């Protein structure tokens, strides 16, 4: 599927909020240190690449916020970072 002409490509990252133990990040940190990497810290999150059929950049941004709210993140623990790529 090729994006339609009016398609916007978004990248949305979802991270655990500061202050919550990032268990996966911590495990990763330990594993990397074990392997001998000079790690200071590591955090883990999810990333989504979404192509949206909307008319404008603003609309894309708004839809992204709504997607975070409705599905991608739970605001109690998650933080969304939206990036409109093209």
């Amino acid at each position, binding site marked *: 599927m090729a994006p339609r002409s009016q398609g916007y490509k978004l990248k949305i990252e979802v991270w*655990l909020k500061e202050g*919550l*133990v990032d*268990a*996966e990040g*911590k*495990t990763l940190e330990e594993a990397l240190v074990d392997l001998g990497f000079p790690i200071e810290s590591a955090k883990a999150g*999810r990333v989504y690449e979404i192509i949206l059929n909307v008319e404008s950049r603003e609309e894309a941004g708004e839809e992204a916020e709504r997607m975070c709210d*409705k*599905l*991608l*993140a*739970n*605001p*109690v*623990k*998650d933080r969304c970072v939206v990036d409109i790529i093209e």
Partner: protein
Amino acid sequence: MVRVAVLRVPGTNCDRETARAIEEAGAEAFVLHVGQLERGEEDLMNYHGLVIPGGFSYGDRIRAGAVLAARLGSKLDEQIEEFAASNRPILGICNGFQVLVELGLLPGFEGCRAALAPNESAHFECRWVWLKKTGSCDLAIGPPLQAMPIAHSEGRLVFSSPSCLEKAGSAGLIVYRYAKPDGSSADGEYPYNPNGSQGDVAALCNPSRMIMGIMPHPERAIYNWQTPLRLRPPAGLGIFRALISAAERSL
């Protein structure tokens, strides 16, 4: 006779034993695919109680419970609202608890939200734990200390603010907390508290006392033979009995 609906979607996988537990407790259980409700082949209001069972709805993709909650929220929100408003009990077990939290039905009081975050151990964990009753709910009867198995990777309850934990505690809405075998507080200590849950919360009730979410699996602690010798007698049936008594009121 009391009729209890047990919901499922792809990946829900504790529906059979949950239905069995409901029948053991003395009601009729009906496993319904959410699609049947969406297509109008079934009506939630024909049932007196609702259970969202454990499992991995949609493979816990995105976040445990999120996709099922989105599906329920977008297509069945009115039915579920009506069901709850008619004061019929709703029980969420494990993945079902996650769904109730995602739907915002729990904790269910002003100004507070919750989430079930990944376990502090960062992996799935299956083990028997001790639960201490520290609150009250129409969906919980049983001994003050009992054993049940957990099996999840996202069971660490976090509230939107520390005051919410206090509020829930003082209102008696924290029905069960993880504990040590002697009944003393787990105090966050692994493996008694298996996931790092704030306040050792294992089960939560809403203020109307008719909606409960519980991470451990009561349906796996119904029979003697299911329960390891040292952790007997099994007490899971109490939760289903309570659910049925609560449901009886709308008969």
